[in-house]
């Protein structure tokens, strides 16, 4: 390329005066401009084709519902709250309500210092203040009781070296806490065998209740709780924070618009594979008969001599627990009940066993539950294992399409669909590609995502973490409860929903333990 006499040596060849721009220069200078024209034409044409496909797809699936944006917490007098139970869940609930343990704050700051990608601390500090004050705490393990009081005084969300506010009173028994005149509402995070008893006592005293799931441990107390809550008119919220999940709202709308066609099968799952997920929780080193009020722990349960395993890992025994049915099936059931308004199943069959965790537990670690809903003409299948992590989604199957629900929502047409037959034949719908996909936080709301976006989103690498903002659903669920107390209305997971959840879980347990199919008698309101 070193030919000095090249035709492209501009000064010598383009025109006689090397410093003026001649006709030839103008033509050569603009030589590639037509390519930009071709580009623009191709781009506009592609957009037109894309838009035409999108608008045709919008006719197939168009979901317009927006998540109910909760009003900001009211100013004025704070709601005076008490907390019963400060174990793993109690700590999480207090955090979600705006009161973190100082040591937890230390951990988050440290985690961020070690790994800048960890923005838990930052997002936590941005969590809205709910305008509540914690006036009483109760835990029958003295260490937890002290921690609860300290946490409740952490009004500024500080670490261990921070300045704390006034500590609330530590109550020895839950009844004393419920009797306190300076408490309007209670958060119950005690073991399952205490839920309904405590909630009933709270309701009797006119205290509003946020109760962890499941709603009850035994069948009769479920009825009594419903009666008491309704009589006293308190605001009751059951702790299924999934109620605040945006994709469930979209799923509900899609089903109401008959996008799936006739729904006939629902498959939901639990897949865990670690000791913590199987309820083998740590035993606190300071725990012993003198720091734990064992008699109060036993409460309505059959007597058993003092046992640290039973105290900390109570979920493993039917004596205190409701097993997978109450702990995890209920979350899945409530999610579907929220989307489909299933109500109580007509019948339930169940089987399972203790196949992996041979640690003396009495509740199964592998469980299958099949609920039949004759009115809706569909089966609800729950399948759980605590010893394999293979991910299985939450799937609603219809004749025309199926829907997979997580934080996201993906709807795919069925190749044999009647509703979409023509569109599939025309090639407009590809059964292998979603006809609708929703990712929370996505700005473009028409439900279409590129392949790359879908890959990233399915791995949680899109939108949800954007700007480090991820709102805790438990926080929203507590906030909804508090807003309802202020407004004098009932929240999303109210006592009616709680009743349906409780009875469904009890039917599953009964079917498992009695090794038979059980039925619901809607007239007599009885499990038979």
């Amino acid at each position: 390329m070193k030919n000095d006499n090249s035709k492209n040596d501009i000064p010598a060849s383009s025109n006689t005066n090397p410093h003026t721009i001649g006709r030839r220069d103008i033509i050569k200078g603009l030589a590639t401009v037509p390519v930009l024209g071709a580009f623009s034409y191709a781009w506009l044409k592609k957009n037109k084709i894309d838009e035409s496909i999108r608008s045709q797809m919008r006719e197939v699936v168009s979901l317009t519902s927006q998540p109910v944006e909760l009003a900001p917490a009211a100013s004025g007098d704070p709601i005076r709250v008490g907390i019963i139970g400060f174990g793993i869940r109690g700590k999480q609930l207090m955090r979600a309500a705006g009161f973190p343990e100082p040591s937890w704050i230390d951990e988050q700051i440290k985690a961020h210092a070690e790994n800048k990608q960890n923005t838990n601390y930052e997002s936590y500090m941005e969590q809205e203040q709910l305008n509540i004050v914690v006036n009483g705490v109760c835990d029958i393990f003295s260490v937890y009781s002290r921690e609860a009081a300290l946490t409740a005084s952490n009004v500024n969300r500080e670490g261990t070296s921070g300045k704390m506010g006034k500590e609330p009173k530590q109550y020895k028994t839950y009844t004393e806490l419920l009797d306190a005149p300076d408490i309007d509402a209670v958060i119950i995070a005690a073991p399952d065998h205490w839920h309904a008893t405590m909630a009933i006592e709270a309701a009797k005293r006119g205290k509003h209740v946020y109760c962890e799931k499941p709603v009850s441990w035994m069948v009769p107390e479920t009825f009594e709780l419903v009666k008491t809550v309704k009589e006293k008119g308190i605001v009751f919220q059951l702790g299924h924070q999934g109620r605040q999940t945006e994709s469930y709202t979209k799923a509900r709308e899609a089903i109401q618009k008959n996008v799936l066609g006739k729904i006939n099968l629902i498959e939901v799952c639990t897949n865990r594979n670690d000791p913590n997920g199987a309820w083998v929780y740590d035993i606190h080193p300071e725990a012993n008969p003198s720091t734990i009020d064992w008699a109060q722990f036993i409460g309505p349960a059959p007597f058993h001599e003092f046992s640290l395993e039973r105290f900390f890992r109570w979920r493993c025994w039917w004596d205190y627990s409701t097993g997978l049915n109450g702990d995890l099936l209920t979350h899945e059931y409530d999610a579907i009940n929220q989307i489909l308004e299933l109500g109580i199943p007509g019948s339930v069959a169940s089987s399972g066993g203790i196949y992996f965790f041979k640690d003396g537990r009495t509740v199964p670690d592998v469980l299958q539950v099949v609920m039949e809903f004759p009115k809706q003409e569909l089966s609800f299948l729950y399948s759980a294992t605590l010893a394999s992590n293979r991910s299985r989604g939450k799937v609603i199957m219809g004749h025309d399409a199926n829907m997979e629900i997580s934080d996201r929502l993906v709807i795919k047409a069925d190749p044999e669909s009647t509703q979409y037959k023509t569109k599939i034949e025309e090639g407009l719908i590809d059964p292998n590609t979603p006809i609708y996909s929703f990712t929370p936080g996505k700005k473009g709301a028409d439900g279409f995502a590129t392949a790359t976006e879908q890959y990233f989103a399915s791995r949680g690498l899109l939108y949800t973490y954007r700007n480090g903002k991820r709102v805790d659903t438990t926080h929203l669920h507590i906030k909804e409860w508090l807003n309802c107390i202020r407004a004098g209305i009932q929240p999303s997971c109210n006592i009616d929903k709680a009743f349906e959840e409780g009875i469904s879980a009890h039917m599953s347990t009964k079917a498992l333990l009695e090794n038979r199919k059980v039925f619901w008698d809607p007239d007599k309101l009885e499990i038979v």
Partner: protein
Amino acid sequence: MRIFAYFRKDFFRFDVYKPIIMFQKENKINYTNVQTFILVTLRVLMGWYFLYEGIVKIANPDWSSFGYLMDSKGPVAGMFHAMAANANVVVAADWLNMWGLALIGIGLMLGIFSRLAAFFGILLLVFYYLSHPPLASLTYVMPQEGTYLIVNKTLIEIFAMAVLLVFPTGHIAGLDRYFSKMIKKK
């Protein structure tokens, strides 16, 4: 040793203030018609490719570099992850990618500031290569359209772009033709 002198003196001389034609003269580069045609075509194709990548991102309100940065693996992944962790850096990276790609594309396609465009094109491509190096042990979330080992499309693009940097054509068939003349006039 001449080659080193060349690199030292001129390789990085991408600035617009120096007319391309002088760069070409000093380096005694002159093309035959076939050479010109091929170089201009390569430049226009690279321009199209970059412009489209930019326009697609600008047109998508949800596009973000975040997922791509987070998906980074290899020896310098830490830097890209740190970028993703900072919301402001992500916003800046988004902006630089969207408009950077589009402007580089226009520069190459129209032959305007074409060496500057090629230089920044190389810069972006080097970032892409380093963030997703095709090493034997690494797999990515991002779907790949082929199988690569060390050498991938991005690395080849870097060198295609380097060809455009050292064999400029904007002053022959492109708007740089006016610039080079006007600047030389002064």
